[in-house]
């Protein structure tokens, strides 16, 4: 194999990711301006030397708000994906390996859950729980767990058919040992690739929920919420719409680029003969 030169994809994705994480981390500690401080004298100012990204209708510095809002969105998305993995992987692996009625039972419930587009699952749960951070995490984790279960199940099924699982059975290994040693490690790759795309989806959905007003409750700044706040000012203060969306898009781009690179490393089948 040729040297692992940093492909442009990994370079750009990595750089973006680092930038976003750094800015968000800084957002927790120190921002140029206090994200919630109101400054009525500086309302609706376009980007300038003093306020790099401009100010909103309360005079709050946009850059500071973006930095402060970042860590919440990121943490919520991460927690949601982790939750989905923790629930979905064991369920999927057991369903795939055990087969039979266990598999069918789990499968039917999953199919039912997957009959709802994930944002609607989240909306439904939020409508019951009311706006809260924990609620968003729970809603998203539940929305994405079925996808994780599906992929884990498919991996377990394909591993079960491979002869090395048969070989372990003939050696006398008990089923839990086979699951842990042979089946589970093989699903890390496909689940990992899925996790990357779920992270992007979670961020997207969380922003959408905040945009709609059913996500994280105010006054905490979130990128989606900022987009919603900027809507009445379209035509007057377009920067209030452009920059929060740009933040979301750049973060998603970073996740997608790195996720793609990960997938290509793990799945070398994309080459076709001429």
């Amino acid at each position, binding site marked *: 194999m040729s040297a692992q030169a940093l492909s442009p994809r990994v370079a750009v994705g990595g750089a973006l990711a680092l930038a976003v994480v750094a800015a968000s981390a800084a957002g927790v500690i120190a921002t140029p301006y206090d994200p919630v401080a109101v400054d009525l004298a500086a309302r609706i100012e376009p980007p300038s030397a003093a306020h790099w990204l401009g100010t909103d209708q309360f005079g709050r510095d946009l850059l500071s708000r973006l930095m402060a809002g970042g860590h919440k969105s990121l943490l919520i998305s991460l927690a949601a994906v982790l939750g989905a993995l923790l629930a979905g992987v064991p369920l999927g692996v057991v369903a795939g390996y055990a087969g039979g009625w266990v598999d069918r039972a789990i499968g*039917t*419930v999953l*199919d*039912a*859950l997957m*009959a*709802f*587009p*994930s*944002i*609607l699952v989240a*909306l*439904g*749960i*939020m*409508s*019951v729980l009311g706006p809260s951070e924990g609620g968003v995490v729970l809603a998203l984790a539940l929305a994405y767990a079925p996808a994780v279960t599906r992929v884990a199940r498919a991996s377990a099924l394909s591993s079960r058919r491979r002869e090395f699982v048969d070989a372990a059975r003939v050696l006398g290994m008990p089923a839990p040992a086979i699951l842990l040693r042979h089946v589970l490690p093989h699903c890390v790759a496909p689940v990992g690739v899925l996790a990357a795309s779920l992270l*992007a989806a979670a961020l*997207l*959905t969380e*922003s*959408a929920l905040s*945009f*709609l*007003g*059913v996500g994280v409750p105010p006054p905490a700044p979130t990128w989606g919420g900022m*987009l919603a706040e900027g*809507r009445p000012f*379209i*035509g007057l203060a*377009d920067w209030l*719409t*452009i920059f929060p*969306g740009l933040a*979301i*898009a*750049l973060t*998603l*781009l970073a*996740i*997608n*680029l790195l996720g*793609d690179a990960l997938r290509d490393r793990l799945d070398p*089948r*994309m*080459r*076709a*003969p001429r």
Partner: protein
Amino acid sequence: MIRYALQRLVLAVPTLLIAGLLVFLLIRLVPGDPALLLVGDLGDPAALEQARRDLGLDRPLPEQFLRWLGGVAGGDLGRSVTTGEPVLAMILERFPVSAQVVLAATLLAALVAIPAGTVAAWRQDGPFDHAAVGLAVLGLSVPSFWSGLLILILFGVTLGWLPTIGYVSPAEDLAANLAHIAMPVAALALTEVATLLRMTRAATLEVMRLDYVTHARAKGLSDAAVLSRHVFPNAFGPTLTVLGLILGHLLGGIVVLEKIFGLPGMGRLLVDAIFQRDYPVVQGCLLFIAFVYVGVNLLVDLLYPLFDPRVRP
């Protein structure tokens, strides 16, 4: 073939039943008096009690579920707490709007992405492929509600070419209808073009590796002939399956876009109902969308044998 269709239909039933159960239980999880939630504050305790008995809310939970199911089967999804209208009627009024936008977006995305993905795969690593893949990643990363807002700013406000809010039915005035839905359709399609292009490209690459493609080339067929007769029909099957999933994304994305563009669709209905705590409407919308989603996937399942004779019964 009829048997196959019936088989698929029968398999969909338990899914729908459990989906219904999930929706039913969800609403029951809301803290508070179920009668108040489902009927609203009538002000009169006696009337509330009457409503409670009418709806069977004093019966055990499993019986409630069966009654509710029975109602659903008959088309009764309850009445809105805020307006008193029958929920199903409200949904049926709004659904065509959402459906039109979603279908138009899917069609647009398919028309662009499928040929582009196929060609990108055929000339893998060529300039077109690199461009297509690059654009696809960008498209994937742009949230549809942001692109919707940006398109709104550009075409609606700055250039003033298209109306920014509202909706006109195509039956009334087709041109106005198209003008109103052009922007939301474009925003939705943008993301889906990316997903569909990647999927088509991947499926095409898979097929290209197979012997019969080499065999077709060994017959001396031109590239175009090999692509269209041998590669595409076999690559389209997996793509078709993904279309079902894409519809799910779109049904989700439309929720936000309807708010941005002021379209009187189902998404708007659902979100407003959540804010107004109009639980019968919330319940009805969720159930309806689940039905539509399952129905679409069923349709895709039935279309699949057209492209893969091996599956034909």
